[in-house]
């Protein structure tokens, strides 16, 4: 099961966070700091899966941005690793060449996309066009 999805930049600033396992607000900052530290301190040739307390972190780096997913021990790490990439591909499709600023300025849309893909800690949709369908419909309504 997926416990959370984080997007952080190399300076350790959170750009997006979504928790599927309730974590109190005042604990999140500390957790994020630890998690980011765990991932940022690793070299490129090292394994993308890290033990963190009683669960695991799966992270993937895209330029200055890290996407970190916390998963339970029974999760298939590699499938989550690829899920992250699928997510980025969807973002790339929507924003056409997505950048960190796209994500910052469209935090709501990124969340909406993520909500289509992961719910309750499970992968619910990975088909790119289907993931984007509700959001593009909303955009059309706003334009029209």
């Amino acid at each position, binding site marked *: 099961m997926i416990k959370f999805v984080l997007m952080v930049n190399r300076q350790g600033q959170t750009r997006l966070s979504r928790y599927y396992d309730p974590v109190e607000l005042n604990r999140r*900052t500390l957790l994020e700091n630890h998690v980011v530290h765990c991932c940022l301190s690793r070299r490129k040739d090292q394994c993308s899966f890290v033990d963190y307390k009683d669960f695991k972190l799966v992270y993937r780096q895209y330029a200055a941005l890290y996407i970190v997913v916390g998963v339970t021990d029974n999760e298939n790490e590699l499938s989550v690793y690829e899920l992250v990439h699928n997510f980025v591909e969807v973002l790339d499709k929507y924003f056409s060449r997505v950048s960190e600023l796209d994500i910052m300025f469209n935090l709501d849309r990124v969340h909406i996309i993520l909500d289509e893909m992961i719910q309750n800690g499970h992968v*619910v949709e990975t088909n790119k066009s289907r993931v984007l369908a509700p959001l593009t419909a909303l955009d059309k309504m706003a334009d029209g």
Partner: protein
Amino acid sequence: MSDVVEKTLTALPSLLSLDSQSGATKLSSTSKLGNLIRGITELTSKHEEEKLIQRELASIKEQVSSPNTSMRQMKELMVRAIYCEMLGYEASFSYIHAIKLAQQGTALEKRVGYLAVSLFLNESHELLLLLVNTVLKDLQSTNLIEVCMALTVVSQMFPKDMIPAILPLVEEKLNHPKEIIRRKAVLALYKFYLIAPNQVQHIHNKFRKALCDKDPGVMAASLHIYLQMIQENPEGYKDLTASFVTILKQVVGGKLPMDFNYHSVPAPWLQIQLLRILAFLGKNDQSSSEIIYEVLDESLRRAEINHNITYAILYECVKCIYTIHPKSELLEKAAKCIGNFVLSPKINLKYLGLKALTYVVQQDPKLALQHQMTIIECLDHPDLIIKRETLELLFRITNAQNVTVIVEKMLEFLRVNKDDYTTIDLVGKVAELAEKYAPDNEWFIETMSTVFSVGGDMMQPDIPNSFLKLLSEGFDSVEEDRKLRLFAVDSYVSLLQGEPGKLPQRFLQVISWVLGEYSYLREELEAVTVLRLLAKLLDMKSTSSETKSWVLMAMTKLCEGGAGVSVAQEVCEAYSSSLDTVLRQRAQELQHLSQDCELRARVLPRDASLEPLEVDSSLSFLDGFVSEALAAGAAPYKPPHQRQEELAQAKALSLEPYSLSLPISMSSCSIADRQSPTLLSVSSGLSGESPDLSHKGGSTMLKLDGVKRVWGREGYLAQREPVEESAHVEVPSPLRSPSQQGDADSSHSQTPTPTPTPQPEQEKQQLASSLFVGLGSQSSVCLMGKSEQTTQRFRRKAKGPVSSSGAGAQVSNSLVSTPNTANNLLYNNLLDSNITSELTVSSLEQTSQLSQGPTAANGTCDVELTDGDMKESSPSLVRDNGVVAADPAPHEDPDRPEDLCLNTHLPAEFSGLCHSEITLLCSNQSLDLSACHVQKEDSLALVVFIYNSSDSDIQQILLELDSDELEVSCVCDSAVQEARSHSVAVCQYSLTVKRPSVHVEVVGMVSYQFPVGTPQSVQFSYKLPLTSFIRPLTVSTEEYGTMWLDFSHDTKQKLTLISDGQEPLVDTLNVLKKKLKLHVVEIIGMEGIVACRLLQDQPCLMHCRLHAGTLSVWLRSPVPDLPDCLMYYCQRALQEH
């Protein structure tokens, strides 16, 4: 092909950078959100961030409440509030506005409103109720996008109590022409199933319809529900096995539309989901497994594209193959597949390969042999994560022959590791291996010393506890015990002579205890030398006061002889004025006992730690004190959780301004605090209040364990035997000699062997031979039955003989906990000392046993003699029941009616019912009063027999009964008036419990009169155990779940497990069921739920979980004290077993 894919993958990330400004252009530079984002990107310190966000929050607060704010502006405000919360600053004032935005906005504004709600609120937040109406409205909307949004938010979070309000609408959507609506409706039902499975029980056929939906997306969504349901009850869905196989075949065969592909692999996540379902269905089921084999074979074959996602599928395939009923052909393929993983140069694949191996070696250790060289390489891998995973693998293949090498590797890792969590976990594993497979005493003590030094003060407290328990309980051979203890003493003395300042506190405590207890074994070692060493510890600044108290305790045991006394006196002087009361107490004890040898010998006899202690865990001996205090106006005791709860509720009350929503808010609040174990057992593992918050985590872990263990080993082994034979040949034989004894040493010895292999390579092979020794053909058998069949050096002795008095719970002096508890005990004795002389005597004995070491005991023995044993128990126990108060000494009447005779007087309606031994309560010259209780299904009857032993008739008999704990009512037609000479009169009473207590007592008085003479009266009392009032409660798991949430009184404790059989949990629960008349509702894997009721209808629920060899029991009931009392009886029942 693969290279191309890899290139496109690596090309993509470079697109993600700050250079592209496309996103920024969409927003005007003057927008407030733009300003905030710019501000955030320019931050340089935490302090600046705080200033910026506080300013931002103030500005948002001002705008949201303004009536002129448009919904469009509100949307932007919500995004800004989301930012603030994301950075960790609460914006709770905006929650209500998020709900308003969801309600009043249109299109994207509405969606952002819903989004903000789902980000801001947790599932039990009371504001969520305000969303219900909006959701209802949107579900009925003609705008599909709005329906979509509502369904999305419902499948993310919804108040459980309100499900019925929207369920019909959601069900209706299952037939919607649009696939997206159907899909989201299924996901919403999945959410309902997760939070309230009983609410959607009636629509299981609709799930089937969704599974058969023509759209693959809807079908895929229904798999979430099925995975969940099948995990809980695989038996119920076996008929679907073929359907899932067909679906997987179609997916693998590329029958889905192209847009489901991910890098040319058809719907990989769907494949993984299906494989997980199949694994559950095929587990322990040959016929279902037969159906699955073919598609697994095809999946393995089809996965030819060299891409990560293919490996992710393969990993799931391998796991499935090793979970279901084995088929040798597939197993071979899976093994080869694992080979591809571990040999891959890609580190992520290597990791996954190790993880797969770890899973697989438990069933087939031979596989570890095949990959031994890779494993050795991974052991030296620069990436600690890989190393750690390799150690995990080695941990699973440890046996008596390779334990030294593997433990050495683990300790090596521990010395460089910096992560606390890993240290705690690994230290526990080393301790477990050391205890299980230690080759000799020296090694064991040394390894444990390293464990204590490395593990320091963060390791699990049960490691030192169980170590000390092991030392004190000993094993089967007295001589071995002596040697082990002696070695420990030697080793610790030399440690103390070195630099004790560097040792962790826990280790010092262990050392103190061992020296105090066993240093007499080393005859040439003078007690005063040890005393001086210990005294040195007291002077160190770093020593904590808890450790000091252990040290003083040890000194108390050692202070003999002139020199010893003088050291002790010095210490006493220093600490008898300590500010720490515990230390002062210890110093006082030391002072007194060092001066009085005789008393010391009595209080602290040598080597007596094994003698069982009697502990009354319900502290019933304090009842008198408590009732006095209550009478004096003290508030009744409430357990901590109840206090907290009341506090929380009080808080909720004071904070909640809306009187209308009060009852709902309170119920939702309680739902947050106490989740039902049947619904979501993760909660028991993860919630902070859980007593066994272990490093293993929640039930997800727990369920995986189940997967591993339940796998049918025996059948599998028989089948594999010939294969293993041949495997043995493949084993690269050790270089030096194939003899297995030398192997363990080979890694340490540096003797160069003439061989053409280069030096490092040779070392590796030596290491390999020592690591994988014992995994060959003959020993693989013993490895399979790891815990049982290997020669376990430190096999724990069976518990000492249990004394037959039966009063109080028996706890062997188990050296747990801090000395403070023992201290409590001394205190308790003081309180009790004025009650009876008998009590003080036995308390003194207790003290003497307890003071030997810090113990867990926190109660004195219970001098009260129980009856309670039903008919089958020995009658000798029973006679002491009554207490004659009014009349002088009971006379011996030779022709007193025997119990047997009285049996015939038992009212006819009770024949065939279980009744207690008929007990004599009191007797005098003229009458004998006896009683027994009869357990009827729905009540408990007390039958009093009045036997007139005189020669004249007795008249005007009046029997009055009263009880603090019980409601006594006379069964009216049985009131007696008179008893003829030498005959028996019988009275019946019906008893119900007013206030649960471990033992309940009825006191009474009989007044009577002879035809000539004055009225006389006799008083008596009758005690009976609470268990007589316990009856099984038959409920279903769902009912149990709902009831669980409603009950407010609970208690938790770890109990001993009955582990002599195959299934400890089932055995243990059966014992409880038999002895206490409980109803076992269901056993799922490592957990069991049990229900009973206290007459008449006061339920008590029990949730048990296997955890680290003990049974974590959680009792819950609406009746105060009932859980505590029942816990006492459970403990007793298990110890008597």
